[in-house]
């Protein structure tokens, strides 16, 4: 692409292309930074720099999967705060697991004593019905960690008759609609559901051409 001053610059592509040419244009400093990040990501014994620690496994229960009938996942700070404010309390819910991960945007630890401003990913179980599981994930899970997150979390569960509810938020500015988002009454709810979900949905379904991405989509 030729610019006003006549020099040719590489036009960025919407298609998100990962060209081999990019690697050649790296300075030695960039290469060093990239290598260090990769080393840090994969230093942990698990693959992809992500690990799920279940408290009920520590007591020598072996590799038995957790029986789960309902799994509610809150992704992002707003959804996690919603659960903290309206659902969670120390009387009815107990912590049963934590995700330990590291990426360039955030790090979580294996502590379960967290502040609302921390980045964390915790799992809770309803004491009166231990098959009801809840997850608060306020940390950012990088795109190359999302698959591992899923496999490790769902891999620990016995999924018979499992109903999963995912809570998440998106900026109103990202919502595609015929009218301007300035005049929209926000916040508002939209839903996506699989055809196996037979219950009533409490809000309209997400209209085309809107999509959901990252961990909620995964």
């Amino acid at each position, binding site marked *: 692409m030729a610019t006003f001053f006549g020099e040719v610059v590489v*036009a960025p*592509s919407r*298609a998100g292309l990962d060209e081999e040419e990019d690697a050649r244009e790296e300075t030695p400093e960039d290469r060093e930074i990239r290598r260090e990040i990769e080393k840090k990501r994969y230093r942990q014994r698990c693959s992809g720099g992500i690990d799920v620690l279940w408290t009920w496994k520590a007591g020598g229960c072996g590799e038995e999967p957790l029986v789960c009938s309902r799994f509610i996942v809150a992704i992002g700070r707003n959804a996690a705060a919603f659960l903290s404010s309206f659902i969670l309390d120390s009387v009815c819910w107990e912590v049963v697991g934590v995700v330990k991960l590291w990426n360039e945007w955030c790090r979580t630890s294996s502590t379960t004593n967290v502040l609302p401003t921390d980045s964390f990913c915790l799992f809770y179980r309803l004491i009166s019905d231990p098959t009801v599981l809840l997850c608060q994930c306020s940390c950012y899970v990088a*795109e*190359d960690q999302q698959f591992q997150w899923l496999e490790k979390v769902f891999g620990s569960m016995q999924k018979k008759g499992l109903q999963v509810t995912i809570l998440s938020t998106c900026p109103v500015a990202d919502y595609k609609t015929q009218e301007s988002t300035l005049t929209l009454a926000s916040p508002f709810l939209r839903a*996506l559901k699989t055809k196996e979900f037979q219950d009533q949905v409490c809000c309209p379904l997400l209209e085309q051409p809107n*999509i959901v*991405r*990252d961990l909620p989509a995964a």
Partner: protein
Amino acid sequence: MFIPCDRGRGSAAPDFKGFTLLMPAVSVGNVGQLAIDLVISTLDMIKVGYFYTDCLVPMVGNNPYATAEENSTELSINAEVYSLPSKKLVVLQIRSPFIKNKYRPFCETLLSWVKSSQCARVVLLSSSHAYQRDDEQLLGTPLRYLLTPDLEKAVGGRVQELNWKEMEKVAAYPGISDTDKVLHIPGGGITKLLFTESCSKGIQMAVLLKFCSEGDNIPDAFVLVNYLNEWLQLIKSEVSTSNNSTDPSSQWKIPSSWRLLFGNGLPPALF
């Protein structure tokens, strides 16, 4: 990798033996993907499965080809497979970019799936940066093709009849005249990798690409899908009686998900 849709008890997994696999490369302007959208939408293709892969950025939405309230609630994800057995056509649509460093594993898994499902041939729709053309490429048609040696034997003649132009090789070291010529498809995403791997694995593959730039790529998608149609004849190109020319553009059905490609409506308070 391929997970068939559950179409009810007793339904067999889909059989793609002898089918043509049509797929896009995620490339400049997303032209290949837009063209595939047109094919799926126009031919009313049925979804038969999806790819369970960690190589693409996850995304989900409702049915992008919905025509009415009733069929708008089927979920759609980043890599799905559609089929039209009457034309022995199977189509893969890719809806998100590759995760860093994952495009090679994806290509390997894809090509081994092509072999195991015994597809007869693969047609890859792609695009390349228009600004990288040399002086000769600036003139004439912006469309190019490539055929692997195995497919060249089968359809080389037909391609000659259609008067198509083969993608030119460029000098490995520009400026030095007696250097080797190599295939270079800037902005083509995985096109070059898939093509070279297919050549070495004996897979019959054709690449159809258009030179374009980022912007409103809908016209590019129409041009590319008409180019494909010249060969595969997926839809009939009716002769228009008014100006006696063949213009099949109007016969491709634009999917409902192409709405609002360039943003929402404007706030009235702006004026």
